[in-house]
């Protein structure tokens, strides 16, 4: 099985967002592998261990993303590819990211591609399905279970809390939903081994991509923090009185009931 995992480096979920000069400040921030991509990596490793083959993790980003790729290698991926756009592009949207990934993947004889169903930063969930479309392969999003038998694939898909049981076939792209598995932590031997595993760095030139092929279709004009919520009211008195007051406030003041 030739398995690829699309990963993204993101802010840690516990990080606060600070904006200055219209940009999100990342000085000193902790970065992680997008949590949904961790499920994808874990699943890929488990499939390879059961069926044989190779797991390649791929990301688009700058030098800094090497750290997250090494983590994926330490978890058990076999190879990593960093498509470094730092020097070529100052803007990237989902259209351009998918284009770049698909150009990289198109001649790789892919059996299975896994990705997170959404990145917790941009939160669009577009890149996976877009890549599948550009490659002409089928995709299934937000999966919570995956069984592969030959080229037949059985999937459980989360659709707003309900589960859809799906049958399809390889080649295929799937995006991981929480509950798919429990991602492992890299072991110490895993971390040691990861240092020697291949990590290739590519630029747009290596993929024969012109900058104008990947010009963004949408552009961000402003980034801002949500207005601070004024401190609320903690009710006082007997608990039963508080509850009465709360219901009354929700009914007549907030008017939500």
């Amino acid at each position: 099985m030739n398995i690829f995992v699309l990963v993204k480096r993101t802010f840690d979920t516990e990080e606060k967002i600070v904006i200055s000069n219209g940009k999100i400040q990342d000085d000193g921030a902790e970065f992680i592998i997008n949590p949904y991509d961790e499920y994808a990596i874990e699943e890929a490793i488990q499939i390879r261990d059961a069926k044989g083959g190779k797991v390649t993790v791929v990301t688009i980003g700058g030098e800094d993303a090497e750290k997250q790729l090494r983590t994926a290698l330490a978890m058990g991926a076999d190879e990593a590819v960093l498509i470094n756009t730092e020097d070529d592009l100052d803007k990237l949207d989902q259209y351009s990211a998918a284009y770049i990934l698909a150009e990289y993947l198109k001649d790789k004889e892919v059996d299975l591609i896994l990705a997170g169903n959404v990145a917790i930063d941009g939160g669009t969930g577009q890149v996976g399905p877009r890549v599948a479309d550009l490659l002409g392969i089928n995709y299934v999003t937000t999966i919570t279970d995956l069984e592969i038998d030959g080229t037949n694939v059985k999937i459980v898909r989360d659709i707003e809390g309900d589960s859809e049981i799906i049958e399809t076939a390889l080649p295929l792209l799937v995006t991981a939903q929480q509950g798919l598995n429990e991602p492992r932590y890299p072991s110490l031997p895993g971390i040691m081994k990861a240092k020697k595993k291949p990590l290739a760095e590519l630029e747009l030139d290596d993929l024969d991509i012109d900058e104008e092929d990947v010009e963004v279709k949408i552009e961000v004009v402003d980034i801002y923090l949500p207005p601070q919520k004024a401190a609320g009211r903690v009710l006082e008195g007997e608990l039963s009185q508080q509850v009465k007051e709360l219901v009354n406030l929700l009914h007549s003041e907030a008017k939500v009931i």
Partner: protein
Amino acid sequence: MANKVLVLGEVREGVLRNVSFEAIAAAKQIADGGEVVGVLLGDSVANLASELIAYGADRVVTVEHPHLKSYTSDGYSQAFLAVCEQEKPEGIIFGHTSLGKDLSPKLASRLSSGLISDVTEIEGSGEGAVYIRPIYSGKAFEKVKVKDGIVFVTIRPNNIKPLEKNASRTGDVASISVDVQNLRTIIKDVVRKATTGVDLSEAKIVVAGGRGVKSAEGFEPLKELANLLGGAVGASRGACDADYCDYSLQIGQTGKVVTPDLYIAAGISGAIQHLAGMSNSKVIVAINKDPEANIFKVADYGIVGDLFEVIPMLIEEFKALKVNS
């Protein structure tokens, strides 16, 4: 100026979803006097066209085919692209639902267009429209413009106000026939798990539990309250990790992002990752034993107390309110 905007009327169990009416209102704003065309896809959906028109669609195009009975990205994209081929829209709006999230990127790819996902507000109209969407699960927001190509937007349920329903509106309803084929996905079954039958992302009221709920049984009073209020049950990561409930209920930066009118957080401490998923709710009620809990910082109303005492009392009070009003 978008002369023509298509809106997908999303049908679930034979009923149009509210977010589709919200999408019509958004389309009106973007179209800026241009035409808003509702699109219905399914095996038997033409009967719903009048409702889209009542909510403001100027006319409706339907595609009916047995292969469109269940949603598949292959089937729906073939049908929707056939509509695009005929209508040549300058804008498309979907709900940011399970279906919308799955289908829109494929269509955007087919149409070589950008796609602005999960929009909560639109400023301005026509070509000057600016789209506001949460990033980092609502820890920040971005304003986005279309630079090149058509305007393709998915809107988050519960944020854009639909137009007043007016059954006296009239409009043309036409069908196009599409040979929907080569579906690569077969839906074998759908297992209903959603606890109250109200979808978490569309719910007007969410009752959510955290570690303080202590067990799977501990969610029962929360479910009872949610049922009573016609809301949905949610949970924090802590509660999901402890196996008190299914991950599909998780609200937070990992999990779902919700913006209901009323969010009741019971036994939830309020970790940043959870706040990201719910702090843009209109009204937040926190119930927690710990007066120092972070959740009180974002709550409009707080009760310091044991949720197992407070929730049953709340149920009684809401019942009394229902009887009296």
